[in-house]
């Protein structure tokens, strides 16, 4: 869900999704990928403004499963680096 409403500490610092530690959450800002691939990701719930959490991964950390919008989607690191997020880190 669009969880901009429950703000934890004020989100700042721009990162890519690939920088998240397992279990860490962030808010998606924009997707820097070709249009049809970005659309596919949005259909799966990767919409700007949504909260994404990093979960488990394949051995070696790539690809990693992300929790978004109630489902779990695995992305390769090379894709995750193109998804820009704001983290809740201070």
């Amino acid at each position, binding site marked *: 869900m669009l969880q901009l409403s429950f703000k934890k500490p004020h989100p700042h610092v721009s990162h890519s999704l690939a920088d998240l530690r397992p279990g860490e959450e962030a808010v998606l800002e924009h997707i820097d990928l070709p249009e*049809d691939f970005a659309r596919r990701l949005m259909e799966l719930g990767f919409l700007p403004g949504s909260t994404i959490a990093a979960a488990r991964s*394949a*051995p070696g950390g790539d690809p990693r499963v992300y*929790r978004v919008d109630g*489902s779990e989607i695995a992305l390769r690191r090379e*894709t995750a680096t193109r998804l820009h997020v704001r983290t809740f880190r201070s």
Partner: protein
Amino acid sequence: MSECHSGPTPATLPIVPGNGSANPDRRVVAIIGPPNAGKSTLFNRLTGLRQKVANFPGVTVEQRVGKARIGGKREVNLVDLPGVYSLDPRTEDERVTHDVLLGKMPGIPRPDAVLLVLDSTSLSRHLMLAAPVLGLGLPTLVILTMADELERRGGEVDCAALAKQLGAPVALVSAAKGEGLETVIEFLSGAFGVPTPVQLPVLQDVPRCRQWAQAVGSQARYRSPAPPIWTRRLDSVFLHPVLGPLIFLVVVVAVFQTIFTGAAPMMDAVEEAIAVSGQWIANLLPDSPVRSLLIDGVWSGVGSVVVFLPQILLLFLFIGILEDSGYLARAALIADRTMAKVGLQGKSFIPLLSAYACAVPAILATRTIENKRDRIATMLIAPFMTCSARLPVYTLIIAAFLPDRPLLGPVLGLRAAAMLALYVIGFLAAVVTARILKSSILKSDRTPFVLEMPPYRWPTVQSIGLRLIDRAKVFLRRAGTVILGVTVLLWILASFPMKDGQAPPIEESIAGAVGKSVEPLIQPLGFNWKVGIGLITSLAAREVIVGTLGTIYGMESESETEGLQQALQQDLSLAGAVALLIFFAFAMQCISTIAVVRRETGGWKWPVIQFAYMSGLAYVSALAAYQIVSRLG
């Protein structure tokens, strides 16, 4: 950003009223929904037709048609479509869905109505698909599946309110348990009503569609379920950095060991039944060429293949459990890095894994791969995976030439290890070939990899049972058609030219002459002319060689039914047996695969390249194996 409604927008569509087809008793209803939403389970429930269901996104890769009997007399043609997230055709299977819905698919009339199947546990996301589907203006029933799971995880939804929001009836069902299907049957048997026009998202971009879905969901008082706790717990084991790959290996080894040892008593029973019934029939018939054809040709030929039914069913049972439980998606995740190294992706892993059962459905399953070059590469390497048709060949030769003794204590026997080794060399051949293809003629940019992880679910007896029955039917049908045909033809070729009304010794028959003519070519591999006949007949299908040898030896050893294994030991050296195994690991002995590759690639180019490459590799490797092993003594 492009639109949520794709292709022709509803405004420009010629909206055919629901009762478009002339005969109201033969209506066509399409089942559409996102991947892994439960379409196929529902389809199975309604039709009883064997439709492959698996807990993995993208299993239905071709539209399937089945008939549902409603209230005893009325028949509805149901079309099960591949899963889609939108109606914008991007991959091959999404295009199929798109074309069927718009009536552009040859052979399938435009549907009279639509069953829109959405997973109630991810409703806010799945509702996005409702916008373009309702926009088609066809009579629609919205079916929310996994009702039991939604309830268990503390979610809820007000169907009446949702129906009002969507302008179409809504049914909450649990297809796996068969609950809530009355509404679906009622809809199918009633007069289809065109949905009440409702406000659909006009702005055609994904965020707007998502907002609309969100709004509709909250109007319907949708409460999303709690996260699946068990899935998380299981993933902490199955995707553990160390335990995960270890469990993967244990699963694979356990499957092979069970297939080999667990199936043995069942196979013995089938073999016994075939032998006894053959003897029984033989006693009923007078001695004549017809009796010879029936007993030596048909019974020993087809029978020697049917023996392997228990083993093949056991393999499909394991694959079915892995698929339905959701473990397969995790396996694809674990395998992605390895696949990336050979230039492929985790998505190629699924077709490749199902190629362990059969290359034909595997090649169809490559349709979920968006990148054309990746798709062709996957098709080309799929037949290297050890399909179930190789099992009879491997089992026969291994059992004839290797003693049954433990190798790693009770965990792994020598025979199971040999079998595992054959699976491994098939896999390695696939990997090396992929590497070559992807760095030469099929080079492409690395394609993005997106894979949805379904929650773990208990496989249902019904779903797996239906699939096993289906597999048994396919196998027996093949035994009854292809193998029977080849066997009868072989018997005729082996019985002529007659001498004094008697069949000649096989060596002097037509079949013998054909075998002898290829002997010089295969002698360096350690094969004699009898194996040569088998190699030729197995061009139709691999397991035919077993039936062929069964026929040849059945005709040779007059009365006494000498075991196929003992007969083989007379004809092949150990080195020859190894060469034969390797030959079968690599050769593309399967007409069905050639046909499906031709169809899917749209020409003869790829199947011809594939056949030449695989046969060449098989020949050279078998030659090397024979020469090396026979020198080792």
